[in-house]
């Protein structure tokens, strides 16, 4: 009989404390009538869940949640509130009793079912014992990337990720079609802000924006060694440009990063991703089988010192394949997030102008 690690450890305690915090914040979101308070609390909710994800060993997911949940989705929600002018929810909900009963019933069933799930951290549970373990054992040999999450995401399940990238692209196009691409947006003069100079903010933003962009590139190229990858890097890159728009105005940002260019980049990312797959097919492999990314004749010409360890020579294609498709993901995600931001922020300007004109 193998002794399992003691059940009451720091991991479990911190995890439960964070979950209780999550429950409290979620309860406050349900209760509050102010939509703005709900958005601010949702940002905290994302943060708490990001820390919880780190505790649960999901470093990559935590990275994504921290960047997206607390960063981009807050800004998108704020943009939506601006456009709908609905800062406070109308009092008097339609019905409270029937939904509460339904939710309590379903929740009770779910909790009842939870007793049948494997205990937290059970290493022998079906989910952990078979396919997860198989990836852990095979990935270092077959892919050669230390970050197994990236290996599974980009290589084993590369087709799935291509689909998700396409969904993100489609969502960006959908938002742009509904809200416009914001090409005519030009900022209004700020109303009565005499003497309201944000010098400190502007100077430090000038310093921060390149720093954030640089860190996005680090996350991108470090993705197969540590936590990170194209999804996270794309959002961070978009955040850098959004910061520019927030501080220096949307018009300046649109001159630096034109919406037309952003749209092209979003499409280019998906194209690059699919193109890598087609290149593998042309060289005799399956779709997105990076071992065939380079023609075999070409690989024979490569000098030995570039390939490194001859035993791992076939990882060469995998490394380049993962880098290329992560680049495609970066381009699509960053451009889509920017398109969404341009859509919401650009429409704000038009809505205000219409209101003032009317």
């Amino acid at each position, binding site marked *: 009989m193998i002794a399992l690690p003691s059940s009451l450890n*720091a991991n479990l305690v*911190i995890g439960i404390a*964070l979950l209780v*915090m999550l429950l*409290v914040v979620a309860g*406050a979101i349900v209760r509050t009538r102010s939509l*703005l308070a709900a958005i*601010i*609390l949702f*940002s*905290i909710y994302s*943060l*708490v869940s*990001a*820390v919880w994800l*780190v*505790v649960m060993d999901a*470093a990559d997911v*935590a*990275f994504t949640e*921290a960047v997206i949940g*607390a*960063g981009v989705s807050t*800004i998108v929600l*704020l*943009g939506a509130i*601006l456009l709908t002018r609905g800062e406070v929810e109308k009092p008097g909900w339609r019905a409270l009793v029937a939904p509460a009963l339904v939710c309590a019933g379903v929740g009770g069933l779910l909790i009842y079912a939870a007793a049948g799930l494997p205990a937290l951290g059970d290493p022998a549970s079906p989910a952990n014992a078979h396919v997860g373990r198989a990836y852990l054992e095979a990935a270092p040999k077959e892919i050669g990337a230390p970050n197994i999450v990236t290996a599974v995401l980009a290589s084993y399940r590369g087709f799935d990720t291509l689909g998700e990238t396409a969904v993100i692209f489609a969502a960006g196009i959908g938002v742009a079609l509904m809200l416009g691409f914001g090409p005519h947006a030009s*900022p*209004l*003069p*700020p109303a009565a*802000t*005499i*003497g*309201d*100079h*944000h010098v400190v*903010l*502007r100077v430090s933003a000038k310093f*921060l924006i390149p*720093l*954030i962009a640089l*860190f996005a590139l680090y996350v991108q190229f*470090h993705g197969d060694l*540590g*936590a990170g990858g194209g999804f996270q890097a794309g959002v*961070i890159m978009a955040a850098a440009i*959004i*910061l520019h*728009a*927030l*501080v*220096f105005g*949307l*018009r300046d940002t649109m001159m630096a990063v034109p919406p037309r260019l952003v749209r092209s980049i979003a499409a280019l990312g998906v194209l690059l991703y699919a193109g890598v797959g087609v290149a593998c097919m042309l060289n005799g492999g399956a779709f997105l089988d990076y071992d065939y990314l380079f023609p075999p004749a070409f690989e024979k010409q490569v000098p030995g010192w570039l390939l490194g360890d001859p035993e791992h020579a076939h990882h060469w294609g995998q490394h380049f394949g993962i880098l290329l498709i992560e680049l495609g993901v970066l381009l699509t995600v960053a451009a889509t997030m920017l398109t969404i931001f341009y859509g*919401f*922020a650009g429409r*704000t*300007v038009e809505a*205000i102008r219409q209101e003032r004109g009317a």
Partner: protein
Amino acid sequence: MLLAAGAAGLLVAMTITIARAIMGPSHYDRILAVNSFGTKTVLLLSVIGFVFGRPAFLDIAIIYAPINFVTTIALMKFFRYRSLAQPLGLSAGEETLDD
């Protein structure tokens, strides 16, 4: 042991900050609470990395500070100017409409 105590203390501080975010009363108090909560999160992420023996996760803490900044600026701008699009810190007359 000391690190675990530090993590616990930070968790308590985060709980208090959440209380301020829920109570308000003004939206500026809430923004302040989010900002302060973000800083504490960064610290907790750093400490947790050491408690669990994988300090490599500091990358999340590094990026979180600037992202927190972006969110705070967005919230602040929303409440102050009701717009995400206009530039900050220009006096009236410095900037005019194109058309």
